[in-house]
């Protein structure tokens, strides 16, 4: 001991670091990644919060790469997806949901502009998988199979790839150049697409081609019919053929006045297309009320804005010379439409039936084990049909029948096929706890400044009229990305590092997040309460 000390001092100066206050703790903070509601609802299983995180920093390429981990068609999806993510977005409870699809579209377009490519890192497996149908389901399956190191060959009956994205969704919502660019990128990656190649018999095609497994994504293309008494003068068409016809040289002749029967998106697309082809009147006739229409509300709005007329609570009775007879319906006490016996004549040149589509199952006729329910192929939780090694997804299996669901099925099937080829069962990743709004500390999020708001409104309006809008302005995409609350996932705001009264949070540096120093953490919980995005959970200390 040093005895040369000041008056009355007997001990050396010590640091309080000797005092391990961690022993006081009864609860400990734990960093968690909670599942953001957008990711949770995305049928394609995108890590939306994850790619917005990169977009926020203006690193669009990393954002796009994160997005491409799940979805090979972002430019398409940013245009046609019905974005259930936005309905679930927590920011909707604060002011307005993040305009996710507009950012996705921007990233997709940016990738096309800049020619970003995806490299296949996995070693080749030597396995060859047959994919039937080049719709979104088939394209996504082939993409993910390729990423996993397998060879994927798509047999497509039609003259172009895209399925309903080409022969259903009209151009004014999805320019074909965008679709072409994203399909082409898949081909450069190594996906082979054989066009004009219909598969008529699965087993023999697989045998002849020496395929190790198969994915079916043939969609639902057989138009549902309804019996309508008709004289011969009038034209009755089905929606699928009309829309398909739009893609060919000889456009379908619909005339000056067109009546479309049905209440789904397809009916709306036909009516809007008819308008664009010069019809003076396009009338959608639907037997139930507007609220009951399965069509997306925004599409109904746009159609109305474009001058499409709608007759709700109306059914078609008879086709005459140059007119159609319709009957008014009325809701009964249970809310079901009932005929009223009140008739009306609508003058029109053609009638288009948009009553939905059935799956053409001819190619599966002789497939042992396969089961079909309600006209759709049954698959298990891994997307495998009753026939081992043959998987299916998209419109041909029970689903919401959207491009997004189809892409999700393609991804999931590819993972299952990969496991199956190795004789394994795919292991489902454990789902993280949901990052609900109540988990957030919204104090910390800046209010969207008023000066930028009007610009934003314009994007919002424009982004649903895609073909009218040129490129989405970068500044606005960046602005939207930054509105993301990063629900449940650390975005390195340094709050935990700052608010700890005990310096018990260690900052590891940009991109590396933080660590707790349990030697000194007293377990006060300030970090968890003040974490804006709910990425810290307090757990009782086990004694």
């Amino acid at each position, binding site marked *: 001991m040093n005895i040369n000390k000041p008056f009355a001092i007997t*001990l*050396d*100066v*010590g*640091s*309080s*670091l*000797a*005092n*391990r*206050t961690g022993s*006081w703790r009864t609860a400990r903070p734990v960093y968690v990644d909670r599942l953001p509601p957008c990711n949770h609802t995305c049928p394609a299983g995108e890590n939306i919060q994850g790619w917005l995180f990169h977009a*926020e*920093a203006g690193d669009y390429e990393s954002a796009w790469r994160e997005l491409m981990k799940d979805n090979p068609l972002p430019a398409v999806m940013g245009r046609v997806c019905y974005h259930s993510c936005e309905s679930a977005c927590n920011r909707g409870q604060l002011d307005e949901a993040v305009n996710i699809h507009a950012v996705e579209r921007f990233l997709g377009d940016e990738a096309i502009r800049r020619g970003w490519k995806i490299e296949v890192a996995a070693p080749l497996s030597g396995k060859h998988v047959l994919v039937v149908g080049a719709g979104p389901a088939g394209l996504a399956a082939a993409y993910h199979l390729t990423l996993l190191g397998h060879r994927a060959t798509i047999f497509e009956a039609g003259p172009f790839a895209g399925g309903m994205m080409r022969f259903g969704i009209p151009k004014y919502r999805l320019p074909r150049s965008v679709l072409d660019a994203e399909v082409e990128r898949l081909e450069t990656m190594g996906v082979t697409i054989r066009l004009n190649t219909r598969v008529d018999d699965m087993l023999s095609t697989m045998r002849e081609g020496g395929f190790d497994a198969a994915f079916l994504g043939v969609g639902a293309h057989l138009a549902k019919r309804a019996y309508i008494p008709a004289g011969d003068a009038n034209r009755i068409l089905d929606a699928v053929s009309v829309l398909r016809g739009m893609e060919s040289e000889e456009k379908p002749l619909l005339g000056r006045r067109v009546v479309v029967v049905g209440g789904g998106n397809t009916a709306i697309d036909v009516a809007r297309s008819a308008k664009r082809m010069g019809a003076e009147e396009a009338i959608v006739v639907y037997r139930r009320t507007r609220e009951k229409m399965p069509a997306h509300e925004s599409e109904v709005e746009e159609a109305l804005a474009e001058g499409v007329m709608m007759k709700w609570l109306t059914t078609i009775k008879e086709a005459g010379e140059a007119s159609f007879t319709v009957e008014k319906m009325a809701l009964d006490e249970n809310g079901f439409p009932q005929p009223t016996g009140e008739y009306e004549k609508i003058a029109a040149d053609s009638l288009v039936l948009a009553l939905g589509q059935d799956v053409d199952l001819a190619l599966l006729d002789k497939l042992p084990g396969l089961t079909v329910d309600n006209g759709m192929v049954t698959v298990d939780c891994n997307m495998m049909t009753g026939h081992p090694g043959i998987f299916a997804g998209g419109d041909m299996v029970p689903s919401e029948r959207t491009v997004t669901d189809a892409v999700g099925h393609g991804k999931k099937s590819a993972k299952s096929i990969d496991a199956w080829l190795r004789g394994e069962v795919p292991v489902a990743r454990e789902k993280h706890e949901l990052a609900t709004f109540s988990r957030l500390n919204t*104090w*910390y*999020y*800046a209010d*969207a*400044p008023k*000066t*930028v708001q009007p610009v934003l409104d314009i994007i919002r309006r424009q982004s649903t009229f895609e073909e009218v809008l040129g490129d989405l302005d970068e500044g606005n995409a960046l*602005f939207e990305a*930054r*509105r*993301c609350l*990063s629900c449940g996932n650390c*975005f*390195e*705001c*340094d*709050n935990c*590092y*700052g*608010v*700890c*009264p*005990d*310096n*018990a949070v260690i*900052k590891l*540096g*940009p991109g590396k997040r933080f660590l707790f*120093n349990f*030697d*000194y953490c*007293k*377990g*006060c*919980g*300030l970090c*968890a*309460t*003040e974490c*804006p995005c709910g990425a810290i959970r*307090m757990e009782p200390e086990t004694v």
Partner: protein
Amino acid sequence: MAFQAIKFYQTGTFTVGNRLLDPEQRSVQADMARTNALNSGHRACQGCGEALGARYAIDAAMEAADGQLIAVNATGCLEVFSTPYPETSWQIPWIHSLFGNAAAVATGVAAALKVKQQKKVRVVAQGGDGGTTDIGFGCLSGMFERNDDVLYICYDNEGYMNTGGQRSSATPPAARTATTPVVGGSPGNVFGQGKNLPEIAMAHGIPYVATATVADLRDLEAKVRRAMEIQGARYIHILVPCPLGWGTASHDTIRMARLAKETGLFPVFEAEWGELTSRLTIRRKTPVEEYLKPQKRFAHLFQPLPELAIVARLQALADRNIRKYGLVEGGAS
């Protein structure tokens, strides 16, 4: 936050850090190399607002003084929990003398530095509200009056917390303390007494006076930085909720400070040469109940029967602050 009008940075300056801001726009506390003037291992309660406020303020002062800083501490929790002999949590030169003389000791340190021609070394004095508004008040007023080159920081937890939560002249009306128990019809601290030290400091006409809370780090740091640019007597009064003395959850310390500001009960402002120069406006106006209810020291206002009249008087105090300091954007509330 003028820059927000141009670009939108997700959390702007509300969070401690913001990876989207330029490094020079980031806070001292976000820095991996911050001083950590008050180091780990101190014995403050879990969630102590005073420990937090002290590190916020002293780290910012260290940054502004290029690491050339001496701190003088009054007796109180901050002193007791940081320096149980022979340990210290302080990573800067630090001196403690008595409960009531911090301002005078700091004056002496500043004078000694002057004699030694140490122009670059700056002096900070710090103490609790008891040490500042009561027992140390005479020394502090003298320091102001002489315009000594000292930044005095008061960590206001609204009572003598280190000795068990007695009333100080900064204890708010109606708050129950160890010396203002429930007696008769009007429980808790009385209305109409106590001192408003920031205003008293302003009345001395010193170059700089400011208030702040641990809920607004950026504002607190900016005020310390501003104070450090000035020579002469400066005073910063920081609201630091005390979980133990207020009867609040340890994880609610910052929330309580935020509510104190958002209700208007604790006005956050700046003044130079005795004149108000800025105030932090209320972002989400909140009734006082939301601030009072989570605190056990106000529990008697809500049970067994709600003391509506007392709550209304507290609300009136908040409304008065809002009017007086212009705490609501665009004028009257």
